[in-house]
């Protein structure tokens, strides 16, 4: 077996309109793809343990729609939906994503699956239309330009060891 590496997802902000989420999985690519695109399986992980995923509809074809609804523990349900723009089975899915609480803030997501030594790296690049949308996505109260501060923060954190 391959030596276990750190499991946590990495979140970075490559530009003012983007969020990049990366994570490696100890599983072959077709299974990660399957878990990502099969409704019954999505229901089991997408809620992150924060609540129950009650709806996971997936029409996996270009132009096809998807919709997930989650009921957070003790909270009102939250819905997300979008449309598939590009599908390369086991490799790449490009899809729009709208958080139904902010219907105007549509993002374009690119999920890429890369093989490495029997493992799979999943990278989800979330492209927002504006920095304001991105920051709303990050659930912030920020006014302007966090990215440079975060770059700096990374340097600082690294220097603190």
């Amino acid at each position, binding site marked *: 077996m391959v030596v276990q590496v750190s*499991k946590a*997802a990495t*979140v970075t902000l490559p530009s003012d309109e983007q969020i990049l989420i990366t994570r490696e999985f*100890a599983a072959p690519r077709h299974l990660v793809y*399957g*878990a990502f695109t*099969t409704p*019954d399986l999505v229901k089991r*992980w997408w809620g992150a343990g924060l609540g129950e995923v009650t709806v996971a509809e997936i029409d996996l074809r270009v132009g096809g729609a998807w919709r997930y609804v989650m009921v957070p523990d003790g909270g009102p349900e939250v819905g997300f939906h979008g449309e598939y723009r590009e599908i390369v089975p086991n490799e790449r899915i490009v899809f729009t994503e709208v958080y139904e609480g902010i219907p105007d803030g549509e993002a374009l997501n690119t999920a890429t699956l890369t093989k490495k030594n029997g493992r799979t790296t999943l990278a989800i690049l979330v492209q927002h239309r504006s920095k304001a949308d991105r920051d709303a996505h990050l659930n912030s109260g920020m006014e302007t330009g966090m990215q440079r501060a975060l770059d*700096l923060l990374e340097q600082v954190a690294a220097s603190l060891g």
Partner: protein
Amino acid sequence: MARAATTTDAFNAVAEPRRREILDLLAVGERSVNDLARLLGLAQPQVSKHLRVLREVGAVAVREGGRQRLYRLNGQALRPIHDWVSKYERTWSARFERLDSVLEELQQEERDGGTGEQGRDRDPSQR
């Protein structure tokens, strides 16, 4: 978001682009106000004003260095910003931990010869 234009937290302090430039410069080493003014192409009073804001939130510390006051970065004060991003990271980490268990099961099913029903009928490789 109705955040008052005050200097009470690290978020506000770094919301101003010039202040972020100052932090960038101080990340490399100590600087005097005059140094900073020259590097940023700003007047010294403006730089002093920004430094005061950064000092109020603790992002910048100062010491007497001979004739000059030398400013340096205090990264710890930016911690709230780090924590803010980490919230998002935690959600995805929790999500992916669940995905790990799903994937383990799927692999087990494959090893067992695909007898499991869940997920098999929608195996993407067979679409």
